[in-house]
């Protein structure tokens, strides 16, 4: 399984440091959670790693290969994919057309999870119920989230960053997505889950990384990290229970 290494990275907007000299390793053996209060830099982290915002300093290495400074589409070719929190897809395109884009453009020798060969296979694997010919304008939010996961999987990534893919989903849908994420991980993909619903983190992830104000605050198993005093203070999370 692939490892992602962040080495002394800083992202700054003018004087504000959204990511402040962060060094961490994401190994493939666990599903890793990236958590932190609002404004801690989680979204910036994803944008930094995926190439949207290059770090001012530091290196990002995927299995030893540097990713920093590359264009986002080059980073996808290297094997890192991310989902978008708010999926905005052209409403005229159908489900399989959206999934077909990475299938065509993110060329890779890696195989798709779940023995999927086509866009409709991937759609089914991700639990997309509407017919693949349905235009995206007619999809529900949970369908759009699944489509995002399918689209990111179609990039055939070695490392997958899921940016709040479960926010706002029903209990049933959340269950199904949790199952899907486990399956994706089991197929050999290193998964990083950016979430702020603690119960999901606790169930899904065996390793958690906490950011606060752009700095690495804590790392470790979720139960340990979530009971850490510093982490609790950062969240001002009174009365939180696992």
């Amino acid at each position, binding site marked *: 399984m692939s490892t992602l290494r962040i080495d002394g990275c800083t992202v700054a907007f003018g004087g504000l440091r959204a990511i402040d000299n962060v060094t961490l390793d994401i190994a493939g053996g666990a599903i890793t959670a990236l958590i932190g209060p609002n404004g801690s830099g989680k979204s910036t982290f994803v944008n930094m790693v995926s190439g949207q915002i290059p770090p001012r300093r530091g290196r990002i290495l995927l299995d030893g290969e540097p990713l920093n400074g590359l264009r986002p*589409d080059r980073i996808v070719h290297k094997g890192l994919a991310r989902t978008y929190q708010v999926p905005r*897809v052209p409403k*005229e*395109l159908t489900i399989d057309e959206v999934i*077909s884009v990475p299938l*065509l453009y993110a060329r890779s020798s890696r195989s798709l999870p779940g023995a999927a060969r086509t866009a409709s296979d991937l759609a089914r694997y991700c639990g997309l119920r509407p017919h693949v010919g349905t235009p995206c304008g007619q999809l529900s939010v949970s369908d759009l989230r699944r489509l995002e996961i399918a689209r990111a999987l179609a*990039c055939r990534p070695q490392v997958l960053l899921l940016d709040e893919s479960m926010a706002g989903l029903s209990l049933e849908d959340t269950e199904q997505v949790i199952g899907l994420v486990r399956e994706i991980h089991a197929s050999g993909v290193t998964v990083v889950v950016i979430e702020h619903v603690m119960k999901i983190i606790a169930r899904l992830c065996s390793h958690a990384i906490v950011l606060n104000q752009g700095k690495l605050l804590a790392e470790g198993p979720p139960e340990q990290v979530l009971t850490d005093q510093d982490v609790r203070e950062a969240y001002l999370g009174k009365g939180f229970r696992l």
Partner: protein
Amino acid sequence: MTKFLLSRLGLYAAIAAPSLLILAADRPFLIQVAIGTLISAILALAWDILSRTGQVSLGHAAFFGIGGYGSALLTPILGAALGWVIGILLCGVVAVLLGAVTLRLRRLYFTIATLSFSLSIQVLILVTPGITGGATGIMPPVIAGGSPPLQLLFITGCLVAAAIVSDVFLGRRFRPAFFMIRNNPDLAAASGVPVTRLKILAFAVSGMVAGLAGACYCGLYGYVIPDDVFTTNWNVLPLAVTILGGMDTTIGPVVGAIVLRLLEEAARHFVGGVGYQVVYGAVIILFIAGMPEGLVGYGRQLIRRSRRSSERAPVKASLAS
């Protein structure tokens, strides 16, 4: 696959049919109108190809003119075939150069840059009278020996060629990627699409098809001045045609060219030779606000709706009995 090919061939036949009918009718006035309309359609197709990536060009007159002047000046030296090919390729090269600089930027700046470019290039012609004839113009070789019916036949062929190119970019390889670039370029990049490179490709192809239209236009009457090709008319026309007919389609610009030509003739009748472009402005506003999918898109919606209601009807009957 064969069904797809047949539908495409049907489309091209439908595009060519009106010309053939007009040729059969043998009315010189109609032939001239048809020639003008077809050239507009080719230019509009060129514009639409680029518009699918979300880039609005206000400078297609530049490519229209470069293709026209290029082919006109090179044909006496290199022969018609090579002269046209190089003239059109020149448009592609210019597009790649301009695009490499401007396509990375906000869409607004690209639009302004194309407008500025097209207004500036006329100046270039005017200050190089030695090569380009300057303000006095040039005398391009005439297509098909000046015979209007043969010209119409040739230009119809060019339109079908442009339609084929348009269809290639509406195929599986390009359409979803182009639409994604238009709607959410970050998402496209996050899907492995080389966004700027594809935009440059679309721009180059768009420029070359526009150059083809220009080459056809310059080859009609044997005499062309810069004002004939480098005017805002050719910048605005493809927008109006495509929005009227239906963006993101191949048949849309063709339908739009025909309908707009009719509207233009009506406007010219009432308003005279100056300011009739008001029709373009009115068309654009009315359709963007009221019918953004254009005539073709609206027609398709109607067909879909009638198909759905006819599917429901038998069910109702059986429930009632």
